[in-house]
């Protein structure tokens, strides 16, 4: 099943940090998000401290019935932060970790904590099975493998083909923990963890169900697709979401990459991660390198 085409997104990913030299107007952006009737706002604050505006954003958006997922650096999660969030708590609070070893020094049992966010890279992907085993055993309810952020020119990462097999094998003996909800945005990470379940999003959802806002207020179709479609310093989120640039891009993404035509897997993967394919090949017709 593929999700339907929407007139405006239901989900916004917004990285507030690292704070740029020219500050984005956070409260103005929050008003834009509320005006667009977004359903879920995923805020990432991965620094030593949380800007005061973040608490106001959470409060205003929660009052507007927007579900908030807040991701903070695990190393900087403190009881003080939890107390600061207690007056307007996010729907989910995720602690970002980059290795399983980080967990052991954390107070992850704090009631404010929903679970972990684990950005996958070439140094830690082999820990995925151990991490899933650990959170299952501990009764942790949420584990998110977030999308890579590529707006600063980072090289896209993908699981090696053998890695997908080895992760699946390592997880094959695991009984699913009934309370654990795992989110994997990368279709090939999904395939590694849930080899028998179709990717729930169907095709790429960049610029359809989601948009991404970087710390400067520049809007992208997806964190993994560094193709700017607007700037919130100049225009509103609604204008960007309903604008011709977004619609034209979305039309391109609805077509299967030319290099995938004839592939027997195309019906299920629908071109995989289109941002990654575009970065590596320089074309919307390129194959997601994770597929090779």
């Amino acid at each position, binding site marked *: 099943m593929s*999700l339907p085409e*929407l*007139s405006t997104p239901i989900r916004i990913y917004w990285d507030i940090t690292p704070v740029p030299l020219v500050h984005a107007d956070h409260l103005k952006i929050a008003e834009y998000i509320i005006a667009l*009737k977004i*359903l*879920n706002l995923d805020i990432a604050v991965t620094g030593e401290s949380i800007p005061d505006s973040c608490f106001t954003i959470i409060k205003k958006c929660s009052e507007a019935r927007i579900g908030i997922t807040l991701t903070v650096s695990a190393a900087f999660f403190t009881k003080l932060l939890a107390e600061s969030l207690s007056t307007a708590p996010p729907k989910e609070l995720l602690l970002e970790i980059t290795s399983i070893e980080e967990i052991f020094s954390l107070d992850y049992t704090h009631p404010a904590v929903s679970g972990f966010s684990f950005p996958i890279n070439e140094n830690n992907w082999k820990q995925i099975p151990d991490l899933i085993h650990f959170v299952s055993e501990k009764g942790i309810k949420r584990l998110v493998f977030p999308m890579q952020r590529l707006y600063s020119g980072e090289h896209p990462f993908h699981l090696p083909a053998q890695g997908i097999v080895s992760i699946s094998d390592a997880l094959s003996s695991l009984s699913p923990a009934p309370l654990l909800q795992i*989110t994997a945005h990368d279709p090939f990470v999904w395939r590694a963890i849930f080899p028998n379940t179709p990717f*729930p999003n169907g095709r790429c959802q960049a610029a359809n*169900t989601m948009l991404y806002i970087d710390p400067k207020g520049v809007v992208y179709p997806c964190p993994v697709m560094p193709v700017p479609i607007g700037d919130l310093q100049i225009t509103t989120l609604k204008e960007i979401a309903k604008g011709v640039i977004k619609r034209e891009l979305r039309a391109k993404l609805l077509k299967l990459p030319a290099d995938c035509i004839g592939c027997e897997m195309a019906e299920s993967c629908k071109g995989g991660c289109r941002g990654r394919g575009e970065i590596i090949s320089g074309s919307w017709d390129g194959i997601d390198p994770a597929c090779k």
Partner: protein
Amino acid sequence: MKRIQRNPDILWREEDDAVEEANSLLESGGAADEIGTAILFSDGTMVTLNILGTEIWKRCEGMTVDEIIAELLQEFDVEEPVLRSDVAAFLNELEEKRYIKYV
């Protein structure tokens, strides 16, 4: 009779453009069943509702089944037995998904 309550964890919105399109079609005697006029979102899963589903969903906040049917009969040109059957089937589906409960 028990009253219906929405699961507060379900995030949802009406799609204004689609509602306008559906209403326009209904006014001109057309069918609007295929137009998604509301989106429900929970745990990463999205469900779209047509215009009748949307109107039922909006009333799942303290009303009884009979109250919902009575209101919808005022809005939609439909026979009561047909509407009653559609509403029952839809509410059963919502209850199975744990989107609503009866209190």
